[in-house]
């Protein structure tokens, strides 16, 4: 993994830069600038801990206006910036750079408004995903996207990565559940996009910001839709003799017009690893296991339960077990939710991959993956958001064994190439970051990538925000327009302000 060559001149001015950033804050402001090497260690990596780098320094602002001040300063002095929420990215989205300032949003931790009349919550961007659901649980509401890191990950990070979760088959990703953001651009402008209403009146900049991986601006506030918790939720555990029959079951359920709240698949290695870890009661004789969650009105769930069981049996399921209590439902999920740490017990290190494929290609992809596993001599366990085709192969390796990390990286890249080859994509929900950056060419032509760079150039022409992420090569932004807009100059000046 190669990162852009750090600017030695910037690193040499480290202390001076940190001082200038500290000087941006008055004595009565609680914003912090961290330069102590021991304290900086906590910021060296995110959830993709195979890659580490000590940042120039870390700034922890407290208000949007302070973020604007920091970005305006960095823009003026051409200092690179990496934004960081809770640092749980699995693709290295918040990986620091040696010549960049990390702007941490941990002090943006307040829920600003809970508005049941409009069914929205307004939160600062450092608020954790789960705490939004907790704040509205008393009234029977919740926030739908539920990435497995939801206890720790921030809502601002969710916007940056367009995070998913096990329920996005029915309820959508972050992008489908966010109504508004407050964004600070690199030139220190504060932009409010969207709000408590639906849809933009002009270009959908909100949709563009969501999933932009910290390359377009820093989000300081987020407005999300909350949903009424369904009357009933129950899960079924369905064991299959082959991965093919499990795949056929997924296709048949969707073909029958049923969209479950969640539909997860695990392969034999994943079933065994999690069963040994949390004793969820998974069938150990199964080659593949499906967890199908149904939610909604009690009558509907009862009706669909029968139809799903019927479909499962018709494609050759070995066992169908439906949860009869909330405790049992949670136990069924406990195994799936602990899949990563469970696999972590089998090997010193693992990589979690994140490709998406058309569902029908699953048996083919699983077969190819076991061939690759034999080829590289590295184990792989599969958990899979089967409903939407999102694979999470966990590649096991030992970083202390020479050559193992490189082999694991190669194996991972082969899996993602395979995903693209069968009509899928490199990443379903973890983001490109640094991890899949160099594979972007597998999916996109140079011209395709140029269009994404056109967006980057519109927001950050000097490429100061999160450089080295997402794009394999940095393009210089050329001035295309015959009416190039300089900051400070007001476009639309001729329009009446209505």
């Amino acid at each position: 993994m190669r990162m852009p060559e750090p600017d030695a001149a910037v690193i040499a001015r480290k202390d001076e830069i940190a001082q200038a950033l500290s000087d941006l804050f008055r004595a009565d402001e609680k914003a912090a600038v961290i330069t102590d090497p021991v304290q900086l260690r906590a910021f060296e990596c995110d959830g993709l801990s195979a890659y580490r780098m000590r940042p120039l320094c870390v700034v922890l602002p407290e208000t949007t206006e302070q973020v604007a001040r920091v970005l305006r300063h960095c823009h003026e002095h051409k200092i690179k910036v990496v934004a960081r929420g809770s640092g749980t990215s699995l693709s290295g989205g918040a990986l620091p750079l040696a010549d960049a300032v990390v702007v941490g949003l941990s002090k943006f931790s307040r829920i600003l408004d809970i508005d049941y009349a409009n069914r929205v919550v307004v939160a600062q961007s450092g608020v954790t995903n789960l705490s939004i659901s907790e704040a509205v649980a008393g009234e029977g509401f919740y926030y739908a996207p539920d990435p497995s890191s939801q206890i720790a990950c921030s809502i601002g990070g969710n916007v940056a990565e367009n995070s998913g979760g096990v329920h996005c088959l029915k309820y959508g990703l972050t992008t489908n559940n966010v109504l508004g953001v407050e964004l600070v651009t690199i030139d220190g402008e504060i932009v409010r996009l969207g709000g408590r209403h639906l849809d933009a009146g002009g270009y959908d900049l909100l949709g563009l910001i969501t999933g932009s991986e910290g390359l377009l601006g820093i989000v300081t506030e987020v407005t999300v839709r909350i949903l009424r918790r369904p009357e009933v939720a129950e899960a079924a555990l369905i064991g299959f003799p082959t991965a093919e029959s499990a795949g056929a079951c997924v296709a048949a359920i969707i073909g029958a017009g049923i969209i479950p709240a969640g539909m997860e698949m695990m392969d034999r290695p994943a079933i065994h690893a999690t069963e040994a870890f949390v004793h969820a009661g998974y069938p150990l004789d199964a080659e593949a296991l499906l967890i199908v969650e149904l939610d909604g009105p009690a009558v509907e769930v009862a009706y669909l339960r029968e139809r799903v069981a019927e479909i499962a049996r018709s494609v050759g399921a070995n066992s169908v077990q439906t949860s009869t209590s909330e405790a049992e439902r949670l136990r069924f999920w406990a195994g799936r939710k602990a899949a990563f740490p469970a696999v972590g017990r089998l090997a010193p290190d693992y990589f979690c991959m994140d490709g998406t494929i058309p569902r029908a290609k699953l048996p083919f992809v699983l077969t190819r993956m076991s061939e690759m596993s034999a080829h590289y001599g590295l184990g792989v366990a599969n958990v899979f958001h089967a409903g939407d085709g999102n694979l999470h192969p966990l590649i096991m390796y030992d970083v202390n064994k020479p050559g193992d990390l490189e082999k694991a990286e190669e194996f991972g890249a082969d899996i993602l190439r395979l995903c693209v080859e069968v009509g899928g994509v490199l990443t379903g929900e973890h983001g490109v970051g640094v991890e899949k950056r160099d594979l972007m060419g597998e999916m996109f032509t140079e011209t395709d990538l140029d269009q994404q760079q056109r967006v980057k150039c519109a927001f950050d022409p000097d490429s100061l925000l999160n450089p080295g992420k997402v794009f394999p090569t940095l393009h210089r932004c050329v001035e295309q327009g015959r009416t190039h807009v300089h900051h400070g100059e007001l476009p639309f000046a001729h329009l009446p302000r209505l």
Partner: protein
Amino acid sequence: MVAAVRWAIAERQAFAVSGSGSKLGWGRPGEQTASLSLSALDGIDLYEPEELVLSARAGTKIAELEQRLAQHGQQLAFEPPDLGPLFGGAAGAGTLGGAIGCNLSGPRRIAAGAARDHVLGFSGVNGLAEPFKAGGRVVKNVTGFDLSKLLSGSFGTLAVMTQITLKVLPAPEEAQSILVFAAAANAAIEIMGAALRSPHELSGAAYLPARAAVRSRVAALAHGRSVVVLRLEGAAPSVAARRAALQDLLRGHGDIAELATPDSRVLWREIRDVTPFISDGMRAVWQVSVPPAAGATIVALASADDDVFFDWGGGRIWLASEHDVATTTIRIRAAVAAVGGHATLVRATDAVRRTVPVFQPPSRAEAVLIARLKDNFDPHRILNPGRMYEGL
């Protein structure tokens, strides 16, 4: 398409880009010198019902897509409005490219998302004659910037989409409605809010004041009482149970009636297509999007003789007025500014749309980004210049 844009660059021409042209009356009249029609670029390239995915050329008629999907019990869940008749044209003319280019979303927006939420990927050509693609054909995809969102609702001003891949969904077995006859807008907002906060999973919540209700073809509305319409879709037993529970919840709010699936479909189509305002000739029509609870306060600021009806639980207001368009727009946008949201002038004469900003004027900071995006995708101003904003 590439050749056409190259020609325009060489000859310094500017295109009015259209599908069937059914919504050419929406947006500013534009600054084009030539036209580029995608109506011949049609046909479904891929449809895999079990994968819930469909790809079609931009000029494919929405009606054709809906028919094909219906054969497999599926639908476009964002329920794209057929706005041709609102602009004085024929029904059923709208194309896929037009629906996505305008981000056209129907009443089910509140439950299923907007048009833009169903675009998985596309191929297109930008104003530099570069062909490119973005997104993919799978639902879960965060590989690179989400250009599908940027293009949805950009009215063809950044690039011309030639092929679009959509997420499709199962169509519900039943689509019934409950009618609550309630007089005033603020009472209607309360009823819709209570229903939407319940666990009964509504897929539509609208309010037709008497003047709009009386224009419906549905007999139950013919006596012209103001009415709240709540839609329940899904499997038959589920709809029946929710219908009963919803009636219990709303007892005491007004007379309640049920609407079976056939009548319900007619009524929601009327709401979707803004049918109550079609026959008004060229009376100006606005679409206003606000926080749903604020719907009634917006309407309170309207003139007594303005016509309105609500969709999206009060979050979308359709308003028709005979008053001077410029001053009415100022009045509406001032009201919107107080609660947050945006107002679009959907229908007005060419002359009016040349002078009155059709789309909500962006904030200063947002305007900078919009101008830079246009500069970067269409620097020579070839694609629908001026359709959204003057000079862009």
